[in-house]
Structure formats: C-alpha cells, structure tokens
C-alpha cells in the first residue's frame, strides 16, 4: 500500500477539451451574468427571516430526546478514544493507522458536507460536549445546584475557534509533512494533540459552560456549525425544524470574529493548494535561507511554511477587506465595522466550495480505506476484525477529467451562492436596490478573484 500525500486532490493529469485557464474565464462570465441577473431581479431581502418551522413533536422527541443524545455522545467518545488509542498503540505508518484518516479525512472533511445537508450533526456526536454535559450532570446530582461559570468575554467572540482552526491545519500540513521529510503527521503526534486538545476544551467548558464554549471557542463545533448555517435543518428551543436554506448564515456571522473563522478556513485551504504549486519555489527559497542561517532543516521548513500559511490567511483577509472598503465608498453605506461583520457570511459558501474542490477526490479515495482495511485493522497490526483488511483503494473510481469538472462546478456554485448572499444583505442594508447593486460591484470583484485563484491553484496542483 503506497503512502498517500494527505489533504490534496489526488489526480492524474487531465485531458481537457479546453485549457484550464479558459475554465476560469467561463466561471467569471457565469459570476458576472449572475450579478446582472441579481441586480435586476433581486430587489428585496429574502434571507433576513429564516422562516423556521418546527416538525411534529414526535420527530423532535426522537431526534432531540435524551436516549439519542446519549447514544450519539457515547459513539463520539468511543471514536475519540479509538483515535487516541490507535494513535498511541498502533502502527506509525500514517496511511495504515485509523487515527490519521479518521481525524483528518473522515471527520474534518465529512462533517462540513453532512452539516450542510442535515444540519448540525456534529453537535450530538461532539465527544467533548458529551463529556462536559455528563460531568455537569454528575455535579448537579452531587451538589444539588447548577455548576457556575464565568461570563464569556463577548469581545473575544470566535477568536479561540479561529486560532484553533489554524493550529489544527498547521499540525496537519506544516508540522506533520515538514517539507517532505515525513509524509504526514505521525499517529502518535495526532493522539497526543487530541489529548492536549481534550484537556484544553474540557477546561474551557468548565470555565465558561459547555454550550457557551461550543458556540464560541470549540474549534470543531464552530467550524462545522458554520457550514450547518447554510443548511435547511436546525433545532431551536427543544424542537427540530426546517428553515429557508442559506438564511441562517447571516445570523451565524454576527458573533465577533466569525469573519476570522471563515477567512482562516479559506486561507488554510489556499495554502494547502498553493504549497505544491505557486508557492513551492518561494517556500523552498525561504527554507534554504533559514537553513543557511543555521537552523536545522526541519525547523527551517516549519518556520517557512508557517510564515506562508499566515501570508495566505492575510492575503484572503486583505481581499475581503478591499471588498468591504469598496462597499463602504458607496453612498448610504453603514459604518465599516458593521459592513465587515455583515458580509462575513458571504464567504462561507466559498469556504465550502474550496474545501470540496481541494479535497473531495482525497475523501472519495480515502473513505474506501476508512471503511475497509482501516476498519478491520485500525492499529495496522495485521488484525482483520470485519474481513476487509485485504481490500484496497480503487483509484479508477474517479477520472482526472471528472475530478476537474467537479472542482470547477464546486467553485462556480459556491461563488454564485456567495454572490446571492451578498446581494441579499446589501438590499437589507441599503434599502434602495440600485444602490445595493452598486455596492455589490466590489463583492463581484472579490468573488471573481477567489474563483480565478481557486481554479489556478487546482490547475497547478493537478498538473
């Protein structure tokens, strides 16, 4: 079994009917046409009210009831435990160890898509939330009162989650690979990181409360919840129901530093795509410069890669800021701070598009491993629990062209949705649909820039 480069689209060279850069032109034309259609036809805001309607009490009783919550929580804790155990006791080969594929592929890439389709599915499975709630229950039973928590500093917002997201991706694609010295993060390091994160998360839950920390600081809750806000299904006040798709994204983004979370998501994905393409040369040069300065090869590579991941995040933030400042120049614009938070949710579909475009082929291939030999032999020690340990990955499942077309479609659809959300918010803020349309020239520029950047990164990575 060959070692797999993690977190990259896995594809052979495609045989396209037109050059890849022409796809970028075509995608840009689609965005421009969408913009004009929105300017003419979308004159009033439609997503300010999500029109959430609850399903019958029976559905809520089943989906939100204690038995299912306990079961899902127990499964989450079991999987976390298995990940840690496999990481510490299993094989050191990342591609043969359950821990690496489960944490960095199945969960990290699977939950965003599931969240869009089914709602916040991570919430009942969140192992730390389950442990925190159980601990809270024990405290209540023993002390006869609710556990007391510190008030969460509202100005802090989602900054802890944004920082944690960058740290997670850094661990996976900077600390682990280290410039090709290692293929991926070692299972042992992943397990230790999981234990450290568990301790930190449970401590924060103890300080600020389980639900508060999950809303603001717990990386996976915030990250998967961000994508869930695009979807149609949501629980509210103890009832499960349906809302207008995309309508909750704006409300998700009102918490301070929500823009930081989505920009971190975009920036880290851009870095992952760029590090094997446009940024490969500069990163190697900086690494060599640091090695010449006396640092070890691994330290030099990690520092160089860290600088460039921060550069990518900064570049995404700069493009967004330019778009916001452009909108601020249009007559009737709200204050800059308000604009920054008011349009942060428009980047969420783009973050999802980038995620799907960059990683879906890896997901399709690696999930074959997850549900065959990694399930039967999670420690990579020769076990065959379910008789599938001898199975392999069929790379013929997706052709190179199919991968490229899915990537282009994901980017185009994601950016069109981003444009729709931006236009809708502008009609709510400006009132006059003509002024709103004028303000959206800038977001159109942002969307076209992100689309062309995304397709450029993918075309270089694929070639």
């Amino acid at each position, binding site marked *: 079994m060959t070692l797999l480069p993690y977190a990259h689209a896995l594809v052979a060279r495609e045989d396209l009917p037109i*050059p890849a*850069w022409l796809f970028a032109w075509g995608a*840009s034309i689609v965005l421009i046409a969408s913009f004009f259609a929105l300017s003419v036809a979308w004159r009033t805001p439609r997503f300010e009210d999500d029109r959430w309607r609850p399903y019958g009490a029976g559905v809520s009783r089943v989906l939100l009831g204690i038995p299912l919550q306990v079961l899902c929580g127990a499964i989450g804790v079991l999987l976390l435990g298995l990940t840690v155990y496999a990481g510490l006791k299993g094989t050191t080969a990342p591609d043969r160890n359950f821990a690496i594929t489960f944490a960095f592929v199945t969960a990290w890439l699977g939950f965003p898509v599931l969240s869009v389709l089914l709602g916040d599915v991570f919430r009942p499975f969140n192992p730390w939330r389950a442990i925190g709630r159980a601990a809270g229950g024990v405290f209540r039973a023993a002390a006869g009162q609710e556990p007391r928590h510190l008030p969460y500093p509202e100005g802090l917002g989602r900054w802890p989650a944004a920082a944690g997201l960058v740290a997670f991706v850094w661990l996976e694609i900077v600390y682990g690979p280290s410039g090709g010295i290692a293929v991926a993060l070692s299972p042992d390091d992943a397990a230790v990181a999981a234990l450290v994160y568990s301790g930190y998360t449970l401590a924060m839950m103890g300080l600020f409360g389980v639900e508060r920390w999950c809303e603001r600081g717990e990386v996976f809750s915030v990250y998967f919840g961000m994508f869930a806000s695009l979807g149609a299904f949501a629980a509210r006040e103890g009832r499960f129901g349906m809302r207008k798709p995309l309508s909750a994204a704006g409300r998700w983004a009102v918490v301070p530093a929500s823009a930081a979370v989505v920009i971190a998501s975009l920036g880290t994905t851009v870095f992952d795509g760029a590090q094997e393409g446009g940024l490969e040369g500069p990163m190697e040069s900086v690494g060599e410069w640091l090695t010449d300065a006396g640092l070890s090869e691994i330290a030099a590579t990690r520092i160089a890669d860290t600088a460039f991941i921060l550069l990518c995040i900064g570049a995404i933030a700069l493009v967004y800021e330019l778009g916001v400042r452009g909108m601020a120049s249009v007559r009737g614009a709200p204050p800059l701070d308000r604009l920054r938070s008011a349009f942060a949710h428009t980047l969420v579909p783009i973050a999802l598009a980038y995620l799907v475009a960059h990683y879906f082929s890896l997901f399709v291939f690696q999930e074959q491993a997850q549900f065959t030999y990694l399930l039967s032999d999670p420690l990579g020690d020769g076990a065959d629990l379910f008789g599938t340990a001898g199975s392999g990955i069929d790379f013929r499942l997706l052709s190179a062209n199919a991968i490229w077309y899915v990537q282009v479609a994901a980017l185009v659809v994601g950016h069109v949705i981003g444009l729709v959300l931006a236009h809708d918010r502008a009609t709510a803020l400006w009132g006059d649909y003509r002024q709103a349309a004028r303000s959206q020239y800038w977001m159109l520029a942002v969307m076209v820039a992100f689309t062309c950047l995304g397709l*450029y990164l993918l075309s270089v990575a694929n070639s």
Partner: protein
Amino acid sequence: MATLLLAHVSHYLWVLYIPPVLIVLGSIAWTMRAERRRRD
C-alpha cells in the same frame, strides 16, 4: 526548441487567470467615474 519554449511559457500561465479580475475592477472604475461625472 519548441518544447523548451512551451516549458518556459507554462511558467507564466498564471497571468491568464488575472484578466477577469482586471475586467471587473476596470468596470468598477469606469462606473464610478461615470457616476461622478453625472453628479458634477
């Protein structure tokens, strides 16, 4: 020779991804100028 030339050209293909962005930015600048002229 042709192969060498193509190999060099491929380093600059990224340039072809920029025109759509420039066209949109140019349109914005043109629209803003037209509006300013209308107001004056």
